[in-house]
């Protein structure tokens, strides 16, 4: 007993502590930092408030959506529909403003509601109909996209009041609002995951659904809630994207789900559930964003860009794992 405690002071066994998540984040963060430094040295324009704010602004919707995706992944689920749902919410939200003349805040709220609604369908399909999350959300991927085209007749929607641009293009002080949104969502997400029943149960259900059920957790209700949240955040992401370009785009968000999932997984989430954190996902999302930004700043040929992005993802994640292994052996 005693020796065990002393060894803990030595900080041993960190790998297997919840701390390991933190390490894994540090590692990913390490990659982030390396790339950051590299770009600062190689590109004169990289380390300018303008550029960094730009990156933050352009990544906002991915980050917001990725945080919702993380929550789902923690429960050993997956949400493939975020891209389509974001498009649906963005378009419908915009339409309520343009066509129904709702005030902007209501329209934004409406968009988020649409996302939550889609999420609710996903959740019920998983918990009540008992579909596996991949199938449920794959179906929604297709259904939501179809609805977008039906509602818009495949035409982009313009004619938004300028006030709508605030969400995506406004600033508070010198800080772009999308970045503030990121910060707020991230902080809330962090607290939900680490301090609330919902978060705790998400980890528990992802780690062992049956044990959670037998521990009296109303797993269906909480699982459904998780998908609703993911949908709502997809909705928010969709509204941010629409506001960025002050229009509703039926083609928005194709393939966005892969970005979201990648961000979560690079950030240390496991598709088998029970693992994942907001900080990790933030790092993962910005890792991807910086690579893309850097590729353009350094005027890398678009074709080589894709190769480089792929390779860096490999290296970053590998490095993460490598550092964890070393940390394990060195204790």
């Amino acid at each position, binding site marked *: 007993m005693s020796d065990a405690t002393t060894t803990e002071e030595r900080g041993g066994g960190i790998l297997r502590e919840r701390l390991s998540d933190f390490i894994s984040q540090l590692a990913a963060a390490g990659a982030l930092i390396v790339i950051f430094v590299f770009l600062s040295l190689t*590109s004169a*324009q990289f380390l*300018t408030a*303008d*550029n960094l704010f*730009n990156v933050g602004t*352009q990544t906002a*919707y991915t980050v917001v959506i990725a945080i919702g995706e993380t929550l789902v992944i923690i429960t050993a689920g997956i949400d493939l529909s975020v891209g389509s749902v974001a498009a649906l919410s963005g378009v419908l939200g915009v339409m309520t403003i343009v066509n129904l003349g709702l005030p902007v805040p209501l329209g934004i709220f409406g968009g988020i509601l649409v996302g939550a609604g889609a999420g609710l369908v996903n959740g019920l399909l998983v918990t009540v109909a008992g579909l596996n999350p991949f199938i449920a959300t794959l179906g929604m991927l297709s259904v939501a*996209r179809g609805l977008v*085209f039906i509602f818009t*007749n*495949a*035409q*982009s929607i*313009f*004619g938004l009041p300028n006030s709508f641009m605030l969400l995506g*293009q406004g600033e508070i002080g010198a800080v772009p609002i999308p970045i503030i949104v990121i910060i707020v969502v991230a902080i809330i997400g962090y607290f939900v995951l680490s301090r609330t029943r919902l978060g705790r149960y998400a980890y528990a259900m992802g780690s062992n659904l049956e044990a959670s059920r037998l521990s009296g957790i109303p797993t269906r209700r909480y699982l459904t809630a998780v998908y609703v949240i993911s949908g709502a955040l997809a909705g928010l992401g969709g509204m941010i*994207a629409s506001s*960025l*370009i*002050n*229009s509703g*785009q*039926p*083609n*928005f968000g*194709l393939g966005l789900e892969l970005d979201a999932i990648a961000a979560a997984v690079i950030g240390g989430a496991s598709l088998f559930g029970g693992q994942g954190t907001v900080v990790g996902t933030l790092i993962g999302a910005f890792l991807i964003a910086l690579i*893309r*930004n850097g590729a*353009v*700043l*350094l*005027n890398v*040929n*678009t*074709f080589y860009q894709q190769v480089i992005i792929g390779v860096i993802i490999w290296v970053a994640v590998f490095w993460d794992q490598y550092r964890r292994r070393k940390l394990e052996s060195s204790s």
Partner: protein
Amino acid sequence: GAKVRQSSSGGKGGGSTGNSGSLRIAVVPKAIGFDYWATVQNGAKCAASEHKNVSVEWKGVTQETDVNGQIQLLQDFITQGVDAIVYAATDAKALHQVSQQALKKGIVTINIDSGTTPQPKQVPLIATNNVAAAEKATEYMAKKLGKKGGKVALIEFQPGTETNTTRVKGFKNVMKKNPQLKLVAKQSSQSDYNTALRVTSDVLTSHPDLSAIYAANEPSVLGAAAAVQRAGKAGKVLIVGWDTASGEIKDVKQGLVAGVLAQNPFLMGYKGVNEAVKKLRTGDKYTLKSIDTGAVLITKGDLNQSKIQSLLNPSCKNPPTWTAQQ
């Protein structure tokens, strides 16, 4: 032994000539989900409405890159034995064989917007000459920038697709002729407004002294314009590009975009169906011929011309029926 497969001919086909027989005409765009193609659809509907019992079936893949998908779609229509197929080829060479199959089944086949290579002589092409149009726009840009020239960025939308290739080709032709123009960045918008915005912002960051942007389709133009405005460089960076979504026209009004190439998608759809019906109803007497629907570079100045207006807001009441020939 193994031999290359010929979809068995026979079956119902364009045989149903004569004046009154009801006609099913399939109209297949490159992809659904863009204003441009929606306008084509309106043109097609309009033409159909002007004839008795002609029904238009509008169907397309969701990604311009989905060549196999479009082929499958067209083959499905061929097996159905529709009377005519009016389509825009997502890939010139790959779609050639499909036209052949259709003809073999006696289905009247017409290309709109993009044809095939080789273009079967029985298959007319009703389209803009993309290369020529691109050259026109780029020359306008060169003229505007004057002899001191400057840095130019290219925002293409989907490398490897026919339209992208031709529009870039025309652009590059003119760039070659004007050494004072320096192509400093080439980025792809993946036909996504937000992506266009992102890459253009980054380009502007790395080339603060950028003088002009050539954007090869609707989302690319919109994104480029948004980025320029965002960077507070409105009017300082000259933007020319393609298509006439209402958002783009607004940007032209505001002087954010110098000029956009307006094709005549309405006319493509309209003529496409119209020609098909004529051919089907009048039979062999009628010979189909290709039509260049032309492309106009719309600048702030000529927004109010009625001709332009009918081009921008085409409707069955005043169809923009003039063509490049006229």
